[in-house]
């Protein structure tokens, strides 16, 4: 009898034992996954998924550089008999063709690596961060961290939508921005399983400006010393650019002044060692930088846009256009800093000449004080405040010339044009020119458009290159669709009823 009692109690223990420790035993565990729990987690999401040091990498922003008038193709010497020369993989962009994702050798560019895809991926992380900030605040997570994180996240979302709308949407035209197509606007983290549609350009810009104002407010007390994390000056600098795009010139001036009141200085090229990189993280000009792709620019961007069978063998496929190089004044110090002579005739990009042990910079996500001077000068000139405009401009130019810089035109359209040309020279190959060309084309007061010609090379029997003709991008009024990068066919295919591209005509070779 006794034994049975013992056994029964043993049985009960046996059944209960796992139940008692069951909670601990079943505690979820993962090597590297976790739920979002703390403000720190949100901060880490910014670093891991929102800021993108090696962001586009491998040259997926090439297209933004090769559509404008600052580059031209660099003809290739043929290396071996029987080797056929393939035209550039990026010729679809370079020649403004209807579907630039399809390359002439039959290769289809993967949607996954397009700017569109990568930027929206980051936006989705940013959206998650912004969505979770109030939830974390309710949980009692530290408020100052959350304020900073929120500010940085809003800044990044603004920066990304700025890039997207200027790449895949129509330029901001004051008169029609309400109805012009922009890009899909997604600000919530939840997955939207259905098709998506484009918001209007105005909606996207409103979102960008609201985000920037939020960022300006939240970042007041943070990241003042940092150039790699968003700070208030970066938000203000971007606001000054945005207001220039939306033709709110007074605001553009106001925000430019706010940045200039801070501690950024123009580098004087008279004291500059020409073998150094011009764009530097530690330069007193630098306001904000994200990513470090510019050194690769030397090879992978201007370099191996052209593939000859073997991916690893690359030659400099593009060079600075003669028009750009010749637009510099003989006394201008910049050409010798910005360009370098390549193996073949033509000037190559050289704003970054070598890897920088102190930190490399981005070819497209870099903001520096020179732009703010140019923003301010342009805004003032359009507003007719010519004297202020000229003095702002000369303030920049005096650091760029060996002698006293020549005096710009007195005012009106000529001054505006002069400032715009100065902007082209100063900011070349920093991701501005293509966007600026679009912006000038729809400017309500001083519209400016031009035709751009890109030469096409062929090879004779002796395997020497010759110009076989050119492709032409006509002025915006005649060729508007070509000024907008079409979305990848797979995106269109997925959302057929709600998403479309403006049809681009096929562009013939003109001989």
């Amino acid at each position: 009898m006794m034994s049975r009692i013992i056994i029964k109690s043993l049985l009960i223990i046996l059944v209960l034992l796992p139940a008692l420790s069951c909670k601990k035993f079943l505690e979820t565990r993962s090597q590297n996954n976790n739920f979002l729990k703390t403000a720190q987690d949100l901060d880490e999401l910014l670093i891991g998924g929102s800021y993108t040091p090696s962001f586009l990498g491998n040259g997926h922003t090439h297209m933004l550089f090769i559509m404008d008038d600052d580059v031209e193709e660099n003809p290739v010497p043929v290396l071996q008999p029987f080797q056929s020369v393939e035209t550039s993989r990026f010729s679809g962009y370079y020649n403004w063709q209807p579907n630039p994702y399809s390359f002439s050798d039959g290769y289809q560019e993967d949607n996954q690596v397009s700017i569109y895809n990568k930027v929206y991926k980051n936006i989705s992380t940013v959206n998650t961060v912004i969505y979770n900030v109030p939830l974390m605040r309710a949980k009692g997570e530290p408020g100052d961290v959350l304020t900073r994180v929120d500010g940085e996240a809003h800044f990044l979302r603004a920066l990304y939508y700025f890039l997207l709308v200027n790449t895949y949407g129509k330029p901001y035209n004051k008169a029609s921005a309400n109805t012009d197509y922009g890009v899909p606007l997604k600000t919530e983290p939840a997955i939207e399983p259905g098709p998506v549609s484009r918001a209007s350009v105005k909606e996207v810009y409103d979102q960008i400006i609201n985000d920037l104002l939020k960022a300006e407010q939240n970042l007041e007390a943070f990241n003042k010393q940092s150039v790699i994390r968003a700070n208030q000056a970066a938000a203000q600098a971007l606001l000054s650019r945005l207001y220039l795009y939306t033709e709110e010139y007074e605001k553009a001036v106001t925000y430019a002044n706010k940045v200039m009141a801070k501690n950024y200085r123009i580098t004087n090229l008279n004291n500059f060692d020409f073998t150094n990189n011009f764009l530097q993280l530690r330069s007193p000009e630098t306001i904000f930088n994200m990513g470090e792709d510019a050194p690769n620019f030397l090879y992978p961007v201007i370099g191996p846009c052209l593939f000859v069978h073997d991916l690893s063998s690359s030659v400099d496929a593009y060079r600075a256009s003669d028009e750009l190089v010749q637009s510099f004044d003989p006394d201008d110090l910049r050409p010798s800093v910005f360009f370098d002579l390549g193996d073949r005739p033509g000037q190559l990009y050289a704003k970054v000449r070598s890897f920088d042990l102190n930190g490399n910079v981005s070819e497209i996500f870099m903001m520096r004080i020179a732009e703010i001077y140019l923003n301010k000068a342009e805004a003032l000139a359009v507003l007719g405040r010519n004297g202020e405009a000229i003095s702002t401009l000369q303030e920049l130019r005096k650091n760029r010339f060996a002698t006293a810089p020549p005096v710009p035109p007195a005012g009106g359209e000529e001054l505006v044009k002069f400032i715009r040309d100065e902007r082209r020279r100063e900011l070349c190959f920093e991701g501005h020119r293509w966007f600026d060309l679009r912006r000038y084309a729809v400017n309500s007061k001083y519209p400016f458009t031009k035709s751009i010609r890109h030469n096409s090379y062929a090879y004779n029997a002796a395997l020497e290159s010759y110009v076989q003709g050119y492709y032409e991008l006509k002025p915006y009024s005649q060729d508007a669709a070509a000024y907008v990068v079409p979305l990848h066919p797979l995106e269109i295919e997925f959302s057929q009823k709600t998403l479309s591209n403006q049809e681009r005509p096929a562009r013939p070779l003109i001989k």
Partner: protein
Amino acid sequence: MMRSFPSITVLSVLFMLCALRAVAQDSEPKITLSVKDQPIREIFRVIHAQTGLNVVVSEKIISGVKNITLDVKDMPVKQVLEQCFNNRDLSYSIVDGTIVIRKKQEKEIETISNDSLPGFVSGKVINSDRQPLEGATIHVKDKNITAMTSSDGSFTIMAGSQDQLIFSYVNYTPQTIRIKGRSVMNVTLEKLVSSMAEVIISTGYQKIEQRYLTGSVTTLKMDSIRQPGLSTVDKMLEGRVPGMIFMQNSGQPGAAPKLRIRGTSTILGTREPLWVVDGIVQVDPIPVDAKNINNLDFVNLVGNAISGLNPNDIEQIDVLKDAAATALYGVRAANGVIVITTKRGKPGPPVVTYSVSGTYTRRPRYTDKEVYVMNSLDRVDVSRELIEKHLKLYGPYEAYEKATIDYYNNEIDFDSYKKQVSRAETMNTDWFKAVTNDKFATNHSLGISGGTQSSRYYASIGYTNEQGVIKGEYNKRYSGQVKFDVNHKKLKAQFGINVNTTQRRYVPSDLGILNYAYGTSRAIPLYNEDGSLYFYPKGQQDFAQKATFNVLNEMNHSSEDVDGSTYTAMANLNYQVIPELQLEAILSYTTANSEQRSWFDENTNWVYSKRGTYPGDETLGRDRDAIPFGGELRQRNNRMKMYNVRGQANYSHFMDAARKHFFQANLGGEVSSNQNSGIEQNRRGYYPDRGQRFADIDPSRYNAYRNWLQQAPPNGGKIRISEGLTHLLSAYATATYIFNDRYIVSANARSDFSNAFGDRSNEKFLPTWSLSARWNMHKDLLQNMPWINNAALRISYGTQGNMLPYQTPYTIIDIGYMNSYYNTFGSTIAYYPNPNLRWEKTDSYNAAFDFSLFNDKINGSVGFYYKKTSNAFLTTKVASVNGIGEYVVNGGTLENKGMELSFGFTPINNIGATNKRRFIWRIDPQLGQVFNKLLDNALNKGDNRVVGEIASALNSGVVTYQDFLNGSVYINSMSVNTFYAYRFKGLNHNTGRPEFYGTEAENADALFAQYSKMPAMEIFRQVMVPVGRREPVLQGGISNYFGYGNWSLNFVFTYSFGNKVRLLRIASGNYGSNRPKSQENLRQEFVNRWRYPGDEDRTNIPAINGNGTDSDPWWLEKNLNVSIGNSYYQMYDDADIRVVKGDYVKLQSSSLNYNAPQKFCKHLGVKAATIGIAGSNLFTLANKALRGQDPSQSGSAPNINLSIRPVYSFNLNVSL
């Protein structure tokens, strides 16, 4: 419940759904019973039920005994018997689990004295394996004389010369033999093999007698399926299990087959069955993710969960197929369960068994039908045509091309040109001989078994050496097993230790060695004329290359080794608390280690090709040199620790005094833990022959090397450590009610809780459960038909829910590493919230009819099943603005249904009185069907937005033409794995290029206009047609057994129907008929190629190179958004004319065995010896159109896999 033989009654068995106790025997079993005025037969029945002891007694004795009244509690069985027999003229003896009851001796002699010619008969009782049977009963017919055999099987009985003797033994067919005046009689008893009543099914949680089984289970005795030439048990299951599809896609040693039990009921999860050994769930030694393991083209060389198990240690295999059988395994059992029971010790003196087998495997040869490639004369003819037609040449030049170019360039004179050409034409290098060889290997296994009733042991060691036909490849396994069984009072315990180590070596898969043998021009020499190795430049690159490739050099300077070892300790404890209640515990601990290492040293073309365009060039080369020094080593280590603790209470009880209502229940809980850690690292600068050291490489000097260092494994140079810890807590219960042995109703349920991260099964309770019933008709409706031995109807229903981990309503982040740029930690989003995901649910129905007729001469089972998976998980593409490309949703409904037939016939059974003329023929056909269909893909409905919505399983969200071609798209009302092909139209009159309907080049403009407005899926459906499914619909086997005297002959045919295969690619892939490089060989078909206009009327084989015009299809030139195909030649290989039926009938195995006669054995001093020869995969009858291609090989696979090789073996088994 009573099996009657003339005048002998064996009161056999019942009520042992949890019949561990029925299998084992207690030395001193105890009885509790209370009967009042009951026949003695009732007492025997209770004794049997409580102890598992069989009772043997003659009807005559029972009929003469008065009813008994008895009330005992926990009384030893002997005492109970003595009380019963008190004052009665009965005596008893207990031998080997059997109580034999007879009249007391003096009375027997009295009755015999009436006989006219009394005398003694003596002899020996043995079984068909020549083992003496101890404790067999010999009974004189119609007389109350009984005798028992002793330990050597000998007996002596007193009987008249005209009497008949009845020989019986538990689990053996009794025999009645006339004495006819003999005084010595040696008798061989046959085991009751096919008798259903004797089979005990193990589900891992329960042991169920077949006649109480309600679920669907196929039970196989290892002895009946063993094939000496095969090294793992999974390969021996081919054609043996109705409803299980067996697919083997490679003949390399150690390559694991793919098994599908009753179809495919999930799209995202793994489709392989669960393996269980002695009640413990087995895990794969190296985790392979579901996408790969489900991929029909994936060759699994790392092995599966039972690769380490020596088939010689296996006793029985139970394949659990329906929900009623698998419910106790919970969600993991969705694809069926294969339960393996290993051998245990048998009581008796030690028996040592030794078996050795030698196997011979034949390598592929150019003369094989399947190897249908050009010889060098034909190949040079192709080159000649290329040059005569002035077609463009591609790739580095060899053989004819090289000689011609050199001659044109005036580098050689005409004489040496002619000499070189004739050398090329007659070269005929035997690449297969160079890279493969015929292999002979031996396997050894030594086992010992023995013990007493209260303690038994079994121990074995085994060595298996499986040699691959590819030179240097092998798979060696060392295994050891010790098992110890104890019965002590109310405790039964079993302890076991199992150790195994495997060593495998392969030629690295990067080399694609068979592709090489098939696809390399035979005009290229292997050796120079001076006997040294001939090196040549190989590769796609057009830049000048050093001649660094020679296949033997490449094989000698590289290797891929996979080593693994597993150690398991387990204990199974069983305690009888009270007669109705039993407690059981199973404890097990396993640790496993595995290491994969593959390397290439410096002197290989593989390394050279990674060295960039200008290796060694300081200016350009340094940046692009990814292996500046040495070779590369890739290493992957994996360690696993597992434990499993199970507690279970078994309750069984009669609910009424008449003992008609029986209730039985099990309640249990299980805790299991699986800890896994792995490290994966690749290193360059490796010098294997210089003390396995590594060069110091300065990453700042070598850009390409530095980039490689920053990439993640498997290809990059980063180190990856992975860790996993899985805890599982489960509760389960079963209940069974049996009425009068006729009607059985059973229910099972289980629920699991785990620590899996983001596993929502912890939040929502959804048990897996089943209901099932059985009607033993032969006890009821059909009981008056003596020719029906057994007839039963089974039905079951069960349901299983499944939820994917990581799919939660919350954001899940991936904790990242220190970001050196920001000098802080960064994380990324791993999974976005998925709040709307519901359970994937599978309902299964099963119905079957089992029968056994004419004394078991005919038996069989006919079953039907239906499985429906609703809310199946599918990945769907979402717009890129979401930041992800695809997303899991409940998308579809899958249906699997089929019929399973299995029969056993014994047309001839002459196991007669004498050993000499006995002849037996048994034939067991099996057949199983699986019809599988995607009923409804919810994503595929509604408006025409089919495009891109259905994500393929393999690609990341975007449907491409390849998905259609390889059968990875899911389309409504089609089978899973349905694949498509282009519609071949003919060859172009002018160019000999293949043309296809819907893609005609002459309509390019119209088609372009049409297709550019159509979604991709619709274009594919326009230019392609579904041509069949890749998995077979019907598979089965017919096994035959012939026994004659000491000889036995077994052969098994397996058959498979219903799938289609692509013919091996002839125009693309490994053969370059499109732009043939001088190094590439072509298929023999191309001898009959189109050469000149008009040839299209006589041949379907396209021209080489499409007559020089660029063969890029128009959609590539026109920049159509969607690619329909890569080239016309790829499309040719993927066209409908290249798809044939994959049906086959195969002589899967055949063996001839001879049992050495007793005398001879005695002479050698052994108990028994068997010698035999056997063959596996001997020949295959398949569609003629396959032209020798093995149906297991498919043109869909990216590589040509080694076809399944025939294996010949001899084997010798000796027991001492």
